[in-house]
């Protein structure tokens, strides 16, 4: 093309942020508030859950011709607020050595925070120092005490409900009042007490009370996964990007797929970002004094690995060679069951908030177990809004229980008797899912595929990831626990307990969507890419504020820690800038 040219915006921004999810949104919020001129690059489109053209909340299943079933565009169902998924047209990724890794991406303002479970758990003191406890992996270069003040600020800024329980590794916080437990959750609490399984109010970033004039309070529709039109749940788009935009200090560029971090050949400093306008396929460049990556753990690693130059032949900020390595996702295993005591239950509205109202933080000591790291248990159940899949597989269930007349019932069936079974079983299902910590390993990694590019011509990621017995034995323990809980409460577990050959039912890596660790921080530049401020050892004006800097995952969800650490790194940027060091 003779008229091909790279368009460069003349402005030199103070900061360019790549990605608008939890980390990027918080950086945009903090930096614009401090007066920095920011360019925020987002690979996807705008999204505002209060704008009718995006709203899926409060819709009925029959408003979807597929009754809420999932599609390639909405892997979590037709009403879910994530644009993207595991399989995005023209944006492939590959695997090697029989790896089965799944990579979920949201292409929209706020990224994956629009549809997530809002489970907002602080890491505890032990989560930053696992190597000191069990000799595996690495300690973080920071401790809980370093992060605690920022967790406090995030609690106040965004809002999280829960209860102070004085637990050793699940810190007390600044909590909003939690919703009361639902019926099955009360049963679980009573039951688990007998088993010694701590079961306490969940900790979700949903506003049970309004905290400011910009966001409403929860009205209990249970649909946080569809994103909230009252902004009563946390998403980066609603709670961070929007306020950042109100400062007029940020230019948000949508449909901007970052290709490379540009550097100055002489100084080695980052000078900007080259990106593809995904609508026009034009190459564009934006210049900035500081570059902050927040594209997600794997996408940020990809960006660094693709930013090769004579000075940085192994990719940018990668003299240690750790970029892409130590990739780890939370472990996951789950089981469902039926509680016969709940057959024919009285109907009332028990939607509640999104997700569960109670959960079980890790309650055991790994020193006494055959696996090194813990997990928490999330619960589900109740009289949910019916959706695609309702009653699916009843032929495996309705023969397990006597009918209303007390007589054995034959599995399957049809007609009025079958129709009545669905009514009878409604609201009697429960489920539980373990979410655990995997051990970060050098040989679980993403790297640049030497052969493939995406539709923008950007080399794609190739994953290599294997579970070890640390994770398998943990999953086995999860399943033993699920059966123990269900037996104790008189519930009938459904399906079969997975075997060793099935990795004890472990979800595939990536499926829990908690990838972390690919650009880890540390004090030693030979063994880490970032210092304790999430600043590249090799490039002082380059920062990473998504989950890539995590040294270990914790048996927690990563979002609250991404937020606290991004706030901490952003404040550091402002201080360094004021001190003339950046």
């Amino acid at each position, binding site marked *: 093309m003779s008229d091909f040219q790279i368009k460069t915006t003349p402005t030199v921004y103070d900061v360019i942020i790549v990605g608008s999810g939890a980390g990027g949104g918080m950086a945009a919020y903090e930096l614009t508030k401090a007066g920095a001129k920011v360019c925020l690059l987002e690979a996807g*489109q705008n999204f505002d859950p209060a704008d009718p*053209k*995006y*709203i*899926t909340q*409060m*819709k*009925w*299943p*029959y*408003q*979807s*011709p*597929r*009754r809420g*079933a999932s*599609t390639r*565009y909405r892997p979590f169902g*037709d*009403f879910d607020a994530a*644009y993207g998924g595991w399989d995005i047209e023209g944006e492939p990724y590959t695997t090697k050595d029989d790896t089965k890794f799944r990579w979920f991406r949201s292409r929209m303002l706020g990224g994956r925070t629009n549809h997530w479970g809002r489970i907002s758990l602080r890491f505890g003191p032990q989560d930053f120092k696992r190597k000191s406890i069990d000799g595996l992996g690495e300690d973080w270069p920071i401790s809980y005490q370093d992060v605690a003040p920022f967790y406090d600020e995030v609690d106040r800024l965004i809002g999280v409900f829960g209860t102070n329980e004085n637990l050793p590794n699940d810190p007390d916080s600044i909590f909003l009042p939690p*919703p*009361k*437990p*639902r*019926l099955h959750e*009360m*049963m679980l609490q009573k039951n688990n007490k007998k088993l010694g399984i701590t079961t306490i109010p969940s900790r979700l970033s949903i506003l049970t009370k309004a905290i400011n004039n910009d966001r409403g309070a929860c*009205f*209990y529709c249970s649909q946080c996964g569809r994103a909230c039109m009252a902004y009563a749940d946390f998403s980066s788009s609603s709670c961070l990007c929007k306020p950042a935009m109100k400062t007029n200090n940020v230019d948000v560029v949508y449909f901007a797929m970052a290709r490379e971090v540009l550097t100055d050949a002489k100084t080695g400093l980052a000078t900007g970002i080259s990106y593809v306008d995904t609508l026009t396929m034009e190459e564009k460049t934006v210049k900035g004094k500081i570059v902050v990556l927040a594209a997600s753990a794997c996408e940020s690693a990809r960006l660094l690995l693709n930013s090769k130059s004579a000075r940085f032949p192994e990719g940018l900020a990668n003299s240690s060679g750790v970029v892409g390595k130590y990739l780890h996702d939370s472990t996951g295993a789950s089981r469902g069951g039926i509680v016969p*005591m709940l057959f024919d239950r*009285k*109907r*009332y*509205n*028990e*939607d509640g908030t999104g997700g569960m109202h109670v959960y079980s933080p890790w309650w055991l000591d790994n020193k006494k177990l055959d696996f090194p790291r813990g997990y928490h248990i999330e619960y589900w159940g109740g*009289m949910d*809004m*019916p959706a*695609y*899949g*309702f*009653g*699916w*597989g*009843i*032929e495996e269930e309705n*023969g397990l229980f006597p009918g209303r007349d007390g007589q054995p019932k034959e*599995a*399957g*069936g*049809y*007609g*009025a008797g*079958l*129709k009545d079974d*669905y*009514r009878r079983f*409604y609201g009697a299902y429960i489920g539980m899912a373990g979410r655990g910590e995997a051990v970060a390993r050098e040989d679980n990694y993403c790297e640049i595929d030497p052969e493939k590019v995406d539709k923008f011509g950007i080399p794609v990621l190739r994953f290599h990831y294997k579970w070890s017995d640390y994770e398998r034995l943990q999953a086995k323990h999860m399943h033993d626990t699920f059966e123990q809980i269900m037996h104790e409460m008189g519930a009938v577990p459904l399906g079969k307990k997975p075997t060793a050959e099935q990795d004890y039912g472990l979800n595939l890596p990536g499926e829990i969507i908690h990838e972390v660790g690919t650009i880890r921080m540390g004090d030693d530049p030979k063994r880490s890419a970032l210092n304790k401020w999430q600043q590249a050892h090799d490039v002082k004006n380059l920062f990473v504020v998504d989950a890539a800097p995590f040294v270990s995952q914790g048996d927690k969800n990563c979002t609250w820690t991404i937020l606290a650490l991004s706030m901490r790194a952003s404040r550091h940027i402002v201080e360094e800038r004021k001190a003339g060091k950046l």
Partner: protein
Amino acid sequence: MKRRNLLKGIGLGSLSLVGLNVPAKAAELLYPAITPTPEVEKKDPVFEQFGRTEHEKARDAKIFAEQFFTKHEMQTITVLVDIIIPKDTHSGSASEAGVPAFIEFMAKDRPEEFQTPLRGGLSWLDNQAKRRFEKTFIEISDAQRIEIVEDIAYPNRKKPGMSQGVVFFNLMRNLTASGFWTSKIGIQDLGYQGNVPNQWDGPPADVLKQYGLG
């Protein structure tokens, strides 16, 4: 998508709509919950928009413009879903809740998963009817249909030669349940009370008492 083409395509006019005021009434039967108001009808969306992206709008429009099942197959599906979920004292039948149109949509939405199992299963069913009664499934009597259904509706009976029919019937049962219980009729029957702004204050006192949790 043209609503009239859709209705013509699935041939419900000849089966269950006799004597009714087609197409408005047919639309109500097909999509009872979203029967459009006259103004909406002019814009011709088959379904209300609910935050669709451009990709999704295009994909759904394409699906609605296509017809997968033949008229005969749609008639068979309609009979079958009403055997699975009939009208009773609580609520209407699966076809009244729009289940046949839902199954037609799902077959096009997930072709790999559904098209061959459903088309093949319907054919298997007709073959059974012809072997036993020398007519297709929709042509035989209610009692004759039930005779066949009894052989495939109970997976644990494991009647020889019926295993493929059992798998097909399981799929039909599951699709019928999904379609019925997510319809307006089904949700009302089930007694789901939510999807409205409210305050949550825990289970009602009588429920707590009932389960000894008061």
